[in-house]
């Protein structure tokens, strides 16, 4: 008897109460982005490297004979370090670089602040 009654309770249709929508946060996009991710590759000078290796292979790894290629490669690496450093600095400060398509979160925030959502 007891079992039966409990079964009855279960089979009873649950009354559907409509969940009222609450607007916890305003229904619009925020004007800022958080600074997550943002990993960047620092692969560079692949071409120069392969040229250098080709020269090395030709000359049995004698560096003296490939000084031109080696210098080119090293210059490339040095330039790359310099540019990436300045770029990083600008990104950290949030200074916008004209023509730059990949932006850091700080740069984005600066941009978003300049052009806020229409209210």
């Amino acid at each position, binding site marked *: 008897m007891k079992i039966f009654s409990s079964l009855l309770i279960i089979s009873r249709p649950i009354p559907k109460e409509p969940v009222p929508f609450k607007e916890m946060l305003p229904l619009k996009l925020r004007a800022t982005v958080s600074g997550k991710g943002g*990993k960047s590759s620092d*692969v560079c000078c692949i071409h120069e*490297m*392969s040229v250098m290796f080709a020269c090395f292979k030709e000359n049995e*790894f004698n*560096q003296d004979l490939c000084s031109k290629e080696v210098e080119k490669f090293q210059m490339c690496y040095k330039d790359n370090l310099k540019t990436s450093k300045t770029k990083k600095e600008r990104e950290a400060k949030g200074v916008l670089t004209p023509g730059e398509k990949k932006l850091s979160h700080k740069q984005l925030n600066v941009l978003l602040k300049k052009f806020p959502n229409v209210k």
Partner: protein
Amino acid sequence: MFGITKIQFFNSNLKVLSTIIQQNGMSQYPNYYIKPIYKKDSQEELIKSGEIKKLSHLPTRAALADQTSSFSNDPLANLLINYCMREGNKILARNLVEQCFENIKRLQLEKYHKTTNEEDKHQIDLDPKSILHKAIENCKPILQLTPIKRGGVRYQVPVPITDKKAQFISMKWLIAAGQEKESTVRFNLQLARELIDAANNTGRVIKKKQDLHRQCEANRAYAHYRWS
């Protein structure tokens, strides 16, 4: 009492203006202290280029205990001494490096007296410091292999290195080559031999460098991996 504090304050050139000292890593100097330019000729260069004016307002760090303005003082040799040093025993390390220089001179002079040709004689470098510089320059690698994990597999990826790092590796190799010897040969003698060899672009260390380059060449397909 206060008179004295005042004088000390002036003397020390310390900037106490801001109570917060601008930290510079673990250094005990604030970050706006410039490193001393202790060689007379490098100061002359600065005066010529007019950059000395910029330094005139900046406080200088005290010169280190192994820095002097003497012509015999060589920063690279000092660095080598420091790399050779164990447990802060600088006197021993310095002695070893100086004996190594002495040995270089002996070996070169021996060669000098053996050669009969006047022109060949001029070719022989009798300055141990220039030999050291040449040796280090010749042993500098261009690339390095770094293990990078990709999909659970470790790849040895060739990566270009900075000049400073290359210099360190070169000196490390030279010292290691000096230590790799029979027990009857002294470190300073072996190091001298290695330095002379490396200065002539031969020897074990040069071979080591070329081996590294060979490996890099073999692994050049991974070069585009680098940090993600």
